[in-house]
């Protein structure tokens, strides 16, 4: 199954060998840390994440995939840099708007935090197979029905893209014109999106019958098909991560209260 792999990059580096819940906790840790620590801390975190990717041999795919966040980062810098309310320290004027020091500093802080979250979640997706993650979560007591919904949704997104391409080919073979004026391109959307959405929803009926036939709704305890390795080091690491998340949250609250 090609689509089932999703965004996972097969490999055997040290990041691949960690237990999925450990990596999930580390991701939460990074998100908490970047919003709690001062901006300089975010720089350290980015360097750490990129170094982690490089040591696992995933630097090139990480940088290539990072471009989905470029527009957001640029947007944060421009809007804050030029339209920060109450900013007085003008760096240079540009017609009716001006780049201000306060705005640029606020924008850079926001952008750094978003960058940490982006790189960390990409690295998590690259090194964790979705099946392993959900098997691990179900073993920890997560509702298997919810786990199914999440896994199926994550696998359906790339499959939907493939299906859209197939429908586009089929409609073009029947003489649909997709290029040309803006009006014509919008007109071409209807024969594309209609079959895509309705086909996906009609498939839901088939999937319901298939799941029912396999005892999905029985509610009986189930056995695991995949066994996910959980080394002792991982268990120790998880305790350390949980303890430091608590400390970080407390530090953040103290810092916010001190600044107020």
């Amino acid at each position: 199954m090609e689509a089932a792999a999703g965004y996972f990059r097969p490999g055997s580096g040290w990041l691949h060998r960690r237990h999925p819940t450990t990596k999930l906790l580390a991701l939460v840790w990074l998100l908490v840390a970047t919003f709690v620590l001062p901006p300089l801390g975010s720089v350290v975190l980015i360097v750490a994440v990129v170094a982690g990717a490089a040591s696992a041999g995933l630097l090139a795919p990480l940088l290539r995939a990072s471009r989905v966040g470029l527009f957001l980062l640029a947007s944060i810098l421009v809007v804050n840099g030029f339209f920060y309310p109450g900013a007085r320290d003008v760096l240079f004027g540009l017609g009716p708007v001006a780049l201000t020091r306060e705005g640029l500093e606020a924008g850079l802080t926001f952008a750094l935090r978003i960058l940490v979250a982006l790189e960390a979640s990409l690295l998590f997706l690259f090194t964790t197979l979705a099946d392993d993650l959900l098997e691990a979560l179900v073993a920890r007591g997560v509702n298997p029905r919810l786990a199914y919904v999440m896994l199926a949704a994550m696998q359906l997104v790339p499959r939907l893209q493939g299906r859209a391409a197939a429908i586009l080919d089929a409609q073009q073979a029947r003489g649909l014109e997709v290029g040309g004026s803006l009006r014509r391109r919008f007109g071409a959307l209807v024969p594309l999106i209609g079959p895509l959405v309705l086909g996906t929803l009609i498939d839901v009926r088939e999937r319901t019958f298939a799941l029912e036939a396999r005892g999905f709704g029985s509610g009986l305890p189930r056995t695991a098909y995949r066994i996910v390795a959980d080394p002792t080091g991982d268990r120790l690491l998880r305790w350390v991560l949980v303890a430091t998340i608590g400390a970080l949250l407390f530090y953040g609250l103290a810092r916010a209260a001190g600044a107020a």
Partner: protein
Amino acid sequence: MLSFDWLHMCATGETTACVSVDELWWIVVGIVFLAAVAFLARRARDFSTATLSLMPAAIAINIAAGALMFALHLPLYLDSIGTVLVGVLAGPWAGAMTGILANFIWSFLPIPGGGNPVSASFAPVAGVIGLMAGLWARSGILRLRAHDERTTRSVAFATFAWGWLVVGGLLRLFFAPNGYFSTVDGSDPTLLGGANLTGLALADAGGLYLTWGIGALGGAALGYVIYRRQLVSLLPVWFAGGVTGVVAAAMSAPIAAYVYGGVTGGGTDALVALFRSAGLSIFQASFAQGLTSDPLDKTISYTVVFIILAALPLTVKTLFPRGDLVVPPTP
């Protein structure tokens, strides 16, 4: 050096380190959201197999349409079509669960709009949208009805009358110097952020007659379209979409303003920048952007769902627990 001196509520005018009311509010909101998610996860055990296999498809439709809008930099989201669909077909709790999960999963995928926590932080809004869709559907607004000539004519006339009345009369009733909202004139900076609404009253008699004329013409034109194209069954759908949009705007404005400074990376950023350069604060600009985008966005989403429901085979619709609410009543 661990000190607990700051761990008390701020007294009025206190300048030393303390916990302010705003911070307490954010913590309370976070805890309420976590409790709601835990409650939903418990409800998920009662969902039928059909509901559980509809939810992934709805989440995928949400993310695919939302990512497309994001990549095109349009000031719309369209990321709640699947949420509304599940809310209508499988009930409010399933709708809320779909919205929350879709926003979280989108955050983790390396596609436009994903790969960052922006989408996940709007999960409470998506949950409420799903909840509202389920409640609207319970009142039967999405039920397909047989066409009735008399209803169409009445609605067309009512549209004309409202166009005449609302635009002219109600504006004056609310915002004139002796109107209900005449205190909102900018003299008190804490009220609605110092907004001045008295200009909406259209003081001179000539302006009033002109607005009445325009309102009557607009109402008549809309009424004619409704009468000719028989859009009566769509009007409640649009009403539900508009109200949902206003609620979504009110909920997402504080998140966009305080967590992201108004910038979320989508096509809506251009609107926020526009409102900010017009002199509004971050919060006001985010709210104004929401009020511009959300009602239109949710109206389009509800219309799309209505069209999907009209096109879906009966055997698919009746598979779901609330499917009987969207098929025409048997005579």
